[in-house]
């Protein structure tokens, strides 16, 4: 046995994040961990990586007990971790980010050698990156690759991937899974955490299921199914979703010839025109980094476009502030819940108030009770594990925060809703809830613009699908005609031919 964790428990005050967890890993194996948001997956991995100390339990590497006081110890024992939230130095180059900790050179940092090594590494594992690019300028998919290369560079034997596919396109996911397969052949072992059960099924040899900090099952992949896994995770079977055909009405959002400057010389958004009608969900598919973020920011008032117009329900709101967009009828589930969607230090109630503050006010005073009552309602309705509304936002697990944000934005009751990556990093139970709510909103006559790098999500929810590539809309497909293959092709710049 390469790795054996026995009886691991971890308490944060009253919260028992891990209870008596046993987990093991063989050489060359992929052993996945699945579980709901907040089930304790990340915590277990942080313990293994030396970032947290277990309250009790032991870790053995190749049979010998090991204590990791900090990540350095873990790295020395051949453990590498790709964090759920990237641990990258934004202002440094790709190469610098990869070699940090084991830089070439003695005292002097030999950057040339670093670049060479990164290029070699990239070659060896077939993971493409530009070593000279700065991280801030890299799309998330590339950042993910940098993280993996970093771990490989450190010579890890055990590689922890905490939700690695959250930001990847199907193509990239495929590449990643392929890379995992290659690497396992070379003797590396993987711990894979994911909410995407089909990926887990295709990549993993064994699967451990966690619920509320406890192991509820250790399964051989060959002898289990997605259904069994989800039952073990959520504790109940998932209902099948039924989607009625859409009945689109008047245009709610109308975008004409919109262009947005990018960081380089090319415009990030290049003369995009689109519209969304009441009662339909329009999906935008595309590999992340092809201008979706900039497009969304421009049609939610967060950046000013260089050219073109945006109108909401006939009102021209081009270049106006987010306030005016919201007044004109916008609600917005942002793509990054921590950057745009929440104030980590604020309470759950406060994070939940945003956008409602003016509606829930009298003479400029906030109706504190009404706010709390509303947030409490959402907590119940969406089954958000938030404790009380007075809890700090940062204590919510990512999935629960996401549910809070979705609840908040749907409750704005606006004619138009942007839903960007609405289920990123969210467990299947929560995903189900969020999808249901989006559909209900559509059925109530809402216009929804859905942006997702998750093709299955796009396909499942959209009534009409636009594909973005290099800042342009390169294709439009109706619900019936869209397939994963067609979309994938368009997403990488392929021509659409029937």
């Amino acid at each position, binding site marked *: 046995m390469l790795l054996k964790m026995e009886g691991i428990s971890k308490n944060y005050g009253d919260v028992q994040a891990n209870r008596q967890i046993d987990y093991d890993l063989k050489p060359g194996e992929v052993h996945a961990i699945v579980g709901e948001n907040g089930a304790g997956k990340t915590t277990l991995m942080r313990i293994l990586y030396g970032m947290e100390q277990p309250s009790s339990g032991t870790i053995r590497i190749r049979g010998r007990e090991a204590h990791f006081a*900090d990540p350095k110890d873990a*790295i020395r024992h051949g453990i590498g971790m790709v964090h759920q*939230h990237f*641990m*990258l130095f934004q202002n440094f180059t790709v190469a*610098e980010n990869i070699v940090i900790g084991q830089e070439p050179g003695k*005292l*002097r940092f030999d950057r040339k050698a670093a670049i060479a090594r990164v290029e070699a590494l990239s070659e060896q594992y077939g993971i493409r990156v530009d070593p000279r690019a700065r991280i801030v300028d890299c799309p998330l998919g590339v950042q993910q690759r940098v993280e993996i290369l970093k771990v490989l560079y450190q010579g890890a034997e055990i590689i922890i991937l905490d939700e690695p596919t959250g930001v990847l396109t199907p193509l990239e996911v495929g590449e990643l899974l392929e890379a995992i397969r290659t690497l396992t052949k070379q003797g590396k072992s993987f711990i894979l955490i994911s909410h995407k059960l089909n990926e887990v099924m295709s990549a993993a040899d064994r699967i451990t299921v966690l619920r509320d900090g406890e192991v509820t099952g250790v399964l051989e992949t060959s002898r289990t199914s997605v259904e069994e896994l989800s039952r073990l995770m959520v504790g109940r079977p998932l209902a099948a979703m039924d989607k009625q055909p859409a009945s689109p009405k008047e245009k709610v959002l109308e975008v004409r010839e919109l262009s947005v400057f990018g960081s380089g010389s090319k415009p990030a958004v290049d003369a995009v025109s689109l519209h969304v009608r009441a009662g339909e969900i329009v999906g935008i598919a595309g590999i992340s980094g092809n201008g979706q973020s900039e497009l969304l920011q421009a049609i939610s008032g967060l950046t000013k476009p260089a050219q073109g117009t945006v109108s909401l329900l006939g009102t021209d709101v081009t270049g106006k502030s987010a306030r005016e967009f919201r007044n004109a009828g916008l609600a917005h589930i942002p793509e990054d819940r921590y950057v745009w969607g929440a104030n980590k230090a604020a309470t759950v109630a406060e994070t939940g108030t945003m956008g409602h503050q003016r509606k829930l006010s009298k003479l400029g005073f906030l109706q504190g009770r009404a706010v709390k009552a509303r947030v409490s309602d959402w907590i119940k309705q969406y089954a958000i594990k938030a404790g009380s509304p007075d809890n700090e936002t940062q204590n919510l697990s990512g999935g629960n925060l996401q549910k809070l944000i979705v609840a908040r934005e749907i409750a704005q009751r606006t004619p138009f809703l942007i839903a960007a990556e609405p289920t990123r990093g969210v467990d299947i139970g929560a995903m189900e809830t969020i999808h249901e709510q989006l559909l209900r909103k559509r059925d109530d006559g809402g216009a929804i613009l859905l942006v997702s790098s998750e093709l299955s999500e796009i396909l499942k929810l959209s009534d009409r699908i636009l594909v973005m590539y290099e800042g342009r809309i390169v294709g439009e497909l109706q619900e019936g005609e869209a397939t994963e293959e067609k979309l994938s092709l368009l997403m990488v710049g392929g021509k659409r031919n029937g």
Partner: protein
Amino acid sequence: MEQLFDLALFNSALRMLTPILLAALGGALCARVGLFNVGLEGLMLIGAFSAIVGNHYFGSTGAAIAFSIGCVSLFALLFAYLCIHLRANVIVVGIAMNLLAAGLTTFSLRTLFDVKGAYYNKDMVGLPKWDIPLIKEIPVVGDILSGHSPLVYLAIVLVAAMWFYFYRTIGGFRFLAAGDNPLAARSLGIQVRRYQYGAMLACGVLCALAGAQLSLGQVTMFTEGMTAGRGFIALVATMLGQSGPLGVAAASLLFGLMDAFSIRLQGLAMPSHFTQMVPYAVTIAAMFFFKNKEFVKDAQSSGTSSR
């Protein structure tokens, strides 16, 4: 006009900016690891005082500077311990440190030398003035660059050294990394705290040098409050120079030149109040060229989460 620009202007500017530059380099080190050090003034004052004490007791400028470095380092360590280990607010500790320095130097002046206000001794020898062999011969440049105290040259060397450290060495690379994203640095096992301590300690050393340049280089005496706000100017230089060695040097130079320039403006009809504003006004004007990042970008890149 000839009254405004003469050789002495540059010569004097170089001398005057040295303490500011040294302290600002220290400030930059701290700023790079997330410690906004408003205590530069106090550390510099302690440096100036202990340099004189050292000189008095050991009778050598070398020993004096060593003594000064030792003393200021102690305070810097205390500073670091409070902020890093005990997680006190950096700014509050900085302000308190300034207060402590003012009180302590005045009090010690009284107890050690039995004088109030100033300690001045004709027999005390200050830092030598170095004539730089080759440079000295060059007509204009020689007059400007030659004949300063060793610390002036050291300051210039330190700018280069810091640049080299930051951008060419592994240690400096990790140092910058620890400041750029402490969470990520810790996840790699980089001891962020160690770098923070190191920065604070180095800042102490630099402030000691800055103080020594003031009390042994520019003059040879200690007077109460003789830093006269230079620590705060250094802080501004740190920020204006965006905590990079070259930027800080440029900012200090700008400030030193403007200061020397403003003195010369005094001769002309303007009241001294307005001439004294010149360096500050020019600094603000300079900032129109070194803009902040747009707050959106800034907030985005400082957000630890990238998803």
